[in-house]
């Protein structure tokens, strides 16, 4: 029988199954960070339990680390949290890329970089953006701290079998349209709870043509569509990304693995519980105007009005969102002035994101009313970007070039947007206060963020790009 990749991976990982119970699933890779792990390690200690497979764990520090001066963590509670992870990893034998380690970075950036993320694996982390790793054809999902403790102790999780959902993106992406615009368009079309109880597989020509880093951007925000996970079937793009990486086999063994990975792809004729199709040429550069990721539109459009909605609860939600965002109904999106630009996060801080933004910034100057920062996704990304002179491009334009971490995506460290100010951000959430109490977030792609930094307001990046001449 034809199967989806979701069913294939699920079946391969069942340790125990019984009617009326969730399945007990084996976990191949457990990623950890400082914020959601301390209570789990403490639980192990209190019960005299060990980490069953420290060799299948990998930890780093990202949420709470400073991006200016690594050696100074001013907040004593932050300092304690970081020190606690170091001590827990030492005590339980968990590999750690600590704050000064050359592999340190955002957990969802370094997993793929180090070749830990591989097709067919079950991957968990106490972080909802674990869905990022689905780009490789892995079954990757975020878990809470009780589940972190459960995986540390047993290397398994009880999971009810999810429903499957296909989102097909047909056709070719238009000029100036990024992976970020695809996922924002999906969420705005179907809503923030479209994926509840489902795992999404992204398919179609537009997805197949994306690089691995672009696929990661899309899978990353599956959680913003409410899905438990999102993935893309492996293909040659996946195999070539992984070839030669650390933690991946070499030579003959790699070719055998590659064959196994490719066989995981969804079979011809397999069916999903739900299928949606979007045409790539309907997608334009996107911005959000509200307080959840579904509240967005193409940059040429306006903030909606109450008359655009049929249901009272949707009109209430619009009113609440616009009151928080200090926006008027019907205002043109390109008129919205911003004071901050953040290029970073597990959604959009990989080398290709920085290169794309750098192309727009090169030779231009950040608007005097704007504070703009670039926070590379990992030390590896930062070194690679510096090697090709991207740091100089951003610095000359007036951006700050920072150390790596989650930074202003959730503003747990010192990188916060002040109350009443507005940020064009390449991150994933525009919830109230996400980037700092009282701050206002507009989610955009890296190139849209770069253009907003120069103009001082949200703007259509296509005006900054040269349209390719069609080949005769």
């Amino acid at each position: 029988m034809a199967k989806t990749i979701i069913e294939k991976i699920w079946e391969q990982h069942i340790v125990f199954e019984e009617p009326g119970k969730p399945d007990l699933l084996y976990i191949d890779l457990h990623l950890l960070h400082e914020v959601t792990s301390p209570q789990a390690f403490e639980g192990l200690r209190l019960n005299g339990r060990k980490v069953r497979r420290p060799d299948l764990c990998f930890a780093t520090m990202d949420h709470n680390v400073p991006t200016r001066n690594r050696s100074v963590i001013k907040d004593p509670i932050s300092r304690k949290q970081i020190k606690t992870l170091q001590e827990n990893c030492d005590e339980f034998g968990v590999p750690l890329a600590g704050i000064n380690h050359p592999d340190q970075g955002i957990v969802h950036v370094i997993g793929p970089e180090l070749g830990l993320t591989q097709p067919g694996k079950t991957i968990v982390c106490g972080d909802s953006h674990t869905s990022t790793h689905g780009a490789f054809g892995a079954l990757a999902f975020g878990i809470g701290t009780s589940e972190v403790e459960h995986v540390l102790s047993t290397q398994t999780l009880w999971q009810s079998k999810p429903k499957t959902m296909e989102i097909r993106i047909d056709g070719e992406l238009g000029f100036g349209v990024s992976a970020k615009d695809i996922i924002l368009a999906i969420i705005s079309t179907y809503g923030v709870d479209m994926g509840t109880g489902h795992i999404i597989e992204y398919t179609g020509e537009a997805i197949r043509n994306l690089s691995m880093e672009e696929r990661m951007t899309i899978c990353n925000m599956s959680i913003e569509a409410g899905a438990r996970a999102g993935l893309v079937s492996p293909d040659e793009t996946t195999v070539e990304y992984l070839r030669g990486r650390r933690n991946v086999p070499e030579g003959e063994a790699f070719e055998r693995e590659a064959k196994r990975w490719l066989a995981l792809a969804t079979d011809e004729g397999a069916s999903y519980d739900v299928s949606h199709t979007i045409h790539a040429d309907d997608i334009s550069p996107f911005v959000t105007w509200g307080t959840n990721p579904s509240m967005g539109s193409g940059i040429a459009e306006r903030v909606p009005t109450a008359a655009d909605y049929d249901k009272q609860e949707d009109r209430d939600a619009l009113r609440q969102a616009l009151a928080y965002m200090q926006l008027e109904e019907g205002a043109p999106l390109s008129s919205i002035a911003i004071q901050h630009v953040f290029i970073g996060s597990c959604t959009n801080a990989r080398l290709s994101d920085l290169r794309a933004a750098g192309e727009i910034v090169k030779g231009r100057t950040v608007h005097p009313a704007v504070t703009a920062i670039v926070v590379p996704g990992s030390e590896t990304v930062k070194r690679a970007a510096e090697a090709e002179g991207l740091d100089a491009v951003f610095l000359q334009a007036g951006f700050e070039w920072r150390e790596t971490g989650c930074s202003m995506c959730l503003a747990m460290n010192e990188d916060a947007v002040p109350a009443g100010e507005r940020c064009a951000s390449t991150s994933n959430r525009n919830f109230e206060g996400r980037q700092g109490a009282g701050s206002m977030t507009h989610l955009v792609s890296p190139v849209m963020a770069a253009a907003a930094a120069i103009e001082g307001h949200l703007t259509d990046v296509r005006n900054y790009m040269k349209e390719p001449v069609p080949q005769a």
Partner: protein
Amino acid sequence: MKPINEISSVLTPLDRKNVDTDQIISKEFLKRIERTGFGKYLFYHWRFHPDGTPNEEFVLNDPRFQQSEILVAQENFGCGSSREHAPWAILDYGFRVVIAPSYADIFYNNCVKNGILPIRLQEAEVTALLEKGKQAPYRLDVDLRQQTVTAEDGASYSFDIDPYWKEMLLNGWDEISLTIQYDSYIQAYEEKMQQAQ
């Protein structure tokens, strides 16, 4: 965790949809390494003005709901981050039951692992509870064993819950102790994988 079966309390009407975990517990409170003490930070930026004084308009500050153990909200409650600090804050504040038409998946799991009962009712049923609960204090009797919610005016609703989670909640079991009983299956799986390589 603490077992849960029958809860009788007035409901707290939080008439919003897509309430995200950033609102339930804001990031500045995630730095602590304990599981307890998060209740005072629950819905912090809705509950308090920037100067730290209570926002009298927010429902948690309404004196009529101070002893409430049942929180009622609209659809997609608990969306966003996987932070278990959100259910920890809800529980520490004093709620044992949440009622909504739907929940984000990770939040739902995090609730049942902490002895909070997340009840799914139909959208129209939740709307009715919210309307009545906003007009005047409205008492509900929740019975997990029977899977029912009965209101003081006789209105009655039934809900579905996975039998596995129901058993865990009723008994207050520690899931890890339970899973350790399956150790031979886990070992067998690991050996099979080892041989396949």
